């Protein structure tokens, strides 16, 4: 139905960190994803763009099985995580996710938001969890807000705490679901700054975003998702300069 640029073949000795294989998703009789193939090497950043309602977020949520694909497989660290025998809780400790609405726990301080999973899931003791959480807060520049509740932080600060919370689990892959869409414009920069820094440090990331500047500069790959399929995939700079499909051309003319 559409021309798909094939990615260069990965070096044979390097396994992809995550691979989505013919993923379909139905919500009721709404066919949202119609055969998605994604493959990401360690250290790569894949930005996912496209019109709203096209299935970007669903794609991302199928990666850590917050939505279970109706059809198809997801491989993560050489394990088929769509197999129902797979221990998803263990898998998810290796796959951090950051949400559009931050989803910090409002009844916990910034610090406790981070330590709760370290203590209850990774079974670290208090001191270890605290040290690791403070380290991550420092990483996002918020160590002085450790004892603040989410309601006392700005949107940008909340989102940076949410990123720190995910990073504290030492994930191999980070999923970002439109993390700047709910922010006031003047707060977007600080969050994108953290993500850019993370990419430079070599974190593997899948990023659903409307920030085209970020997509162009930080993305290793860009996929354009429309109508539940990957309509186009390639290097971001090439895709911006020379879109191959009409749909991407139209989309870019609207958002740029």
């Amino acid at each position, binding site marked *: 139905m559409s021309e798909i640029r094939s990615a260069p073949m990965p070096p044979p000795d390097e396994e992809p960190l995550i691979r989505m294989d013919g993923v379909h998703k139905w919500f009721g009789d709404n066919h949202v994803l119609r055969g998605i193939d994604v493959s990401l090497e360690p250290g790569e950043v894949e930005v996912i763009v496209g019109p709203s309602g096209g299935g970007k977020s669903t794609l991302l949520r199928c990666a850590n099985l917050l939505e279970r694909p109706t059809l198809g497989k997801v491989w993560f660290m050489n394990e088929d995580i769509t197999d129902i025998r797979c221990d998803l809780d263990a898998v998810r400790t290796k796959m951090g996710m950051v949400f559009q609405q931050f989803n910090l*726990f409002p009844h916990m301080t910034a610090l406790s938001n981070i330590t709760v999973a370290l203590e209850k899931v990774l079974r670290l003791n208090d001191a270890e969890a605290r040290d690791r959480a403070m380290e991550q807060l420092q990483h996002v520049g918020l160590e002085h807000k450790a004892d603040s509740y989410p309601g006392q932080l700005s949107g940008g600060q909340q989102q940076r705490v949410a990123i720190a919370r995910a990073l504290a689990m030492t994930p191999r892959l980070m999923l970002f679901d439109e993390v700047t869409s709910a922010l006031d414009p003047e707060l977007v920069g600080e969050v994108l700054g953290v993500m850019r820094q993370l990419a430079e440090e070599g974190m593997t990331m899948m990023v659903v975003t409307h920030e085209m500047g970020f997509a162009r500069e930080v993305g290793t790959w860009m996929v354009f998702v429309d109508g539940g399929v990957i309509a186009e995939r390639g290097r971001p700079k090439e895709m911006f300069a020379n879109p191959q499909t009409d749909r991407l051309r139209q989309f870019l003319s609207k958002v740029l």
Partner: protein
Amino acid sequence: MAEVTLDTRPLVREAPPDTRGPSSPQSLTALWLGIGSIAAVLGGTIALILNYELSPRVLTPSCIDLQLTREIRGALGVCNFVEALRSSAETAVLLIGIALGVVAMTFGWSIRGRMDTLRRREQAITGAILGLQGVFIALVILAFREGRPDLFAKNFLNFAVIGPYFPGPFFSAIKNTIVLAFVGEAGGIVIGMVLAVLSLSTRSAARAPARAYINLFRGTPLIWQLATGYFVLLLGFDIRPSTFLVAMGIFALNTGAYAAEVFRAGIQSIERGQIEAARSLGMTYLQAMRFAIVPQAIRRVIPPLMNEFVILIKDTALVVVLGLTTSQQELFAWARAGQSDTFNATFFTAAALGYLVVTLPLIRLVNAVERRLRSGLVGIAGATP
């Protein structure tokens, strides 16, 4: 990186200016007419009754005609009440109240549109409303005293008959009412938690028994549950249970069904993102519930659970169907026992007052908690550093 600092200046709390404007003699007149009407009717009536009750008096011939004889305990008090109601002073008070009220209504309502400040209009309308209330109450009292206030007062307002049953048994009954309701509520909360978790399951096999339980206990009268529960134990299982224990158990089972729905609604009211965030950190479903969802849900269900408790306090009256020993009597059973001893229903009036003594502070507390919870998430989290 660029740090966007929040404005950290302390929030200045300053009352807004009063913008309702001045009052006027006209609007004040309407307001005071209304106040005068209700004061004449209520204040006058109460003052007259107190005057009759507290001044030294004897049984009047008309009272003796009404069979309020000296042999009847409390006859003088009842007689005074009736005499006060039927006195010509009371008639005068009521007529003055009605006159003031009618003037307040017509005057206040007719000038309200011409009032040019908010305060003036509010005064005019408030005067009209108070006048309406004064007239209404006066008409009710007029009609009441044309009926048989003597019979009513003798049977329902003769507090002298309560003497031997007060204060010891009365407060013991209040204590039993509270114990029954409290144990029932506590047990119901435990049962309700379990049922709520089951009824939220995605598996119909786990959901079905919980739904059946909830529907049975929400769909049948509590009075039937009490009676049947007792006989299920007595006949079905050949156990001879204490009625007090049966009542506690049935109240817990019944409250459990309602509490389950409260908890379910509370859990479902937590944004989906919260459980998704918890699960994406690798927490199991139960961990996510325990550390992320339930602590937030608890805060939201406190007011409705307290409302359930108020309802249960009143529903404990239904244990009379089981029959209780004297020391186990709660308020309603106390009233019924007193009434069957003395053939006087004033005990029920006293019981109602007893319920109010318990429920009114609780209702105030619920309202205060609701206000506090509604005032903001920071307050809920207890985020005062």
